[in-house]
């Protein structure tokens, strides 16, 4: 027994001394990564993972080119023009789903299936990261967009029961109560957050299968579920703050912190915001699945791929390999406020909300995101426009017709 241990130890040391550094030593040069993580916690999370990478590959000079601006829309434009110019960065941030599919179909990315272990990633996640059996990008984290955030003090004061809030009708009744008490029931923000809300509402109205079907064309937008979603959207917007179009998502979340509003439906990056404002999870704020979406988990996945034209492909492969490891994901995600895209996380590193999300991720139906690159981008953009107009002129039939035309226009 002792002998075996010694042998194993020798092998391990040998690997560490000879094998790994030898392989690592081969990777040198500059590695340019384009991402859109600029704000507080996001920047720190990336710095942490960059530090890990640099300790593994000390010969590589990591250059992070961050591009600020609403959920990466600016960064994406920048990136696409660079790709068109034949000058892509060595690796870049991309949302898993149709967004990365666009790059795959355009022949921008190369397969990296050999760099990750398919057993530790959920199939639904790998499906969003790849195409026809090959994987083209490594998911670094998972955010949950369909989360309802609740100001605990106010719901306690109003006597609203939290566990059933994910039921749409219960939620509407709670909104009514909050409104009567003089609060803004639902804090809402600018255009993209309205589209984000619509994603949750569609999922709630159609269920996970119907919702998925919308994006591959198997369920048409003329489906009665879409009618129901639009009706529900109309109801919800009626409970929102009238100045929503002037507010960024964090300003909307701030309405909860300020005690002006009771609920907010936002991705779980809002949790990081609440904590930064000194709120404690479970004490000052609580959460639930967005109304109607219990049992489903919308996937907002940030991933990194390797372009075929990357200047330093070796370093880029080393980078995506690093972020696929659980060590890297456990460094990154507790700071970012998201959960690992794979199994094997050390739960002691995560806070009470993230553990909830992790468990939910493991057990729920996983579906793509409307507002975060999960579905065809041009279609998501058009839906954003249509919903934005619908908020002003709640013509259900008209909006549904427009949605259907947009889907056909997008080739579904």
């Amino acid at each position, binding site marked *: 027994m002792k002998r075996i241990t010694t042998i194993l130890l020798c092998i391990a040391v040998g690997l560490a001394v000879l094998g790994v550094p030898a392989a690592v030593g081969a990777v040198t040069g500059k590695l340019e990564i384009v991402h859109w993580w600029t704000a507080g916690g996001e920047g720190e999370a990336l710095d942490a993972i960059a530090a890990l990478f640099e300790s593994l590959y000390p010969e590589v000079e990591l250059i992070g080119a961050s591009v600020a601006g609403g959920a990466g829309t600016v960064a994406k434009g920048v990136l696409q023009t660079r*790709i068109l110019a034949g000058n892509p960065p060595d690796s870049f941030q991309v949302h898993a789903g149709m967004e990365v599919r666009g790059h795959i179909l*355009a022949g921008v990315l190369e397969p990296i299936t050999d760099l990750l272990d398919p057993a530790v990633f959920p199939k639904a996640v790998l499906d969003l990261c790849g195409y026809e059996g090959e994987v083209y990008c490594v998911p670094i984290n998972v955010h949950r967009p369909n989360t309802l955030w609740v100001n605990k003090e106010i719901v306690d004061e109003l006597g609203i029961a939290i566990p059933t809030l994910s039921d749409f009708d219960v939620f509407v009744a709670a909104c009514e109560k909050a409104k009567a008490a003089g609060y803004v029931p639902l804090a809402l923000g600018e255009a993209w957050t309205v589209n984000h809300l619509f994603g949750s509402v569609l999922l709630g109205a159609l269920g996970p299968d119907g919702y998925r079907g919308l994006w591959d064309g198997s369920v048409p937008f003329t489906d009665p579920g879409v009618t129901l979603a639009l009706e529900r959207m109309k109801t919800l917007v009626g409970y929102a703050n*009238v100045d929503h179009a002037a507010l960024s998502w964090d300003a909307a979340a701030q309405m909860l912190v300020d005690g002006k509003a009771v609920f907010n439906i936002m991705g779980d990056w809002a949790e990081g915001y609440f904590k930064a404002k000194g709120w404690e999870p479970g004490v000052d704020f609580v959460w639930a699945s967005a109304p109607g979406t219990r049992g489903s988990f919308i996937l907002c996945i940030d991933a990194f791929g390797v372009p075929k034209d990357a200047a330093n492909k070796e370093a880029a492969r080393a980078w995506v390999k690093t972020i696929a490891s659980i060590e890297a994901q456990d460094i990154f995600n507790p700071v970012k406020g998201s959960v690992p895209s794979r199994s094997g996380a050390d739960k002691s590193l995560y806070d009470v909300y993230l553990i909830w999300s992790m468990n939910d991720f493991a057990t729920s139906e996983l579906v793509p995101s409307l507002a975060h690159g999960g579905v065809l981008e041009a279609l998501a953009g058009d839906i954003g426009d249509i919903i934005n107009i619908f908020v*002003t002129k709640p013509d259900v039939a008209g909006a549904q017709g427009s949605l259907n*035309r947009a889907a056909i226009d997008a080739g579904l």
Partner: protein
Amino acid sequence: MIKERTKEKLISIGLVSPTVLAIGIFVYGFIGWTIKLSFSDWNTFAKLLKGKFKFVGLSNYIKLLFQDPRFPSDLWNTLFFTILFLLGCVTLGIILALLLDRGLKGSIIFQNIYLFPMAVAFVVTGTAWRWIFAPGISAYPQGINLLFSKLGLDALRWRWFVSIEHIGPFNLALIPVVIAATWQLSGYTMAMCLAGLRGIPSQLIEAAQVDGASGWQVFWGVKFPLLRPIILSAMIILGHISLKIFDLVFSMTGSGPNLAVDVPALYMFETTFERLRYARGAAIAIIMLIMVSFIIIPYLISSMKREAKK
């Protein structure tokens, strides 16, 4: 001598030819390319990368004009924005010019204050105006609403650029954007009118005054008719600016609340550079070009004719 002339002619043509060539390519060549693009199917990233044109006729234009949820309202917004903006700039410009034309002590300081916004970038002023017109919610007013409420003018509180009220196709949310644009550019009409007023021979005005005309009558009877051509050309310059307005809206409101302040330039930018529908974006750009041409080409022709007469 004749040889000399030919040589001179060649030199002069040679001197302007770089410019002619540059404008030929960068303006007319590129416009031609954009027109071609607008008839193509380059509406996805993959097709763009492949770089092959497929002609689809007018389908981009038809989609925009007849099936698009956004573009028709952009055109309405442009129409109302232009009308209000021109009205604002002309009225305010004339009033300011008349005030300054009195030649009171210190006028030059006021003139500089009225004109300074013209030196400032739209994206700078857009930032400030966004902050001013953000309305807050009724219990917690912000910006100008807060100011009104402090001054006891609560009746004036309004939702400004997040308003969803509309009179027919006219979105009231445009009003704050019009105010910001008028603030920025009314100095232009003021400067034009002031130059015009100073060019009016004083005998004309004195003669009218001797005839017993009131200040008002002097304005309408003498000054205004003389200013009219100046105001018209100011309106053309400002009108074409308003048709292509982008920076201010982009930085102040974005396409904003429920697309109530969306304009073609903004939609073109998003369509082309964010959604990568180059062909659709090109069609928007060409529609904008046609609108601008309608007011600029006659203006250029008449300017040149007037010059030729001189």
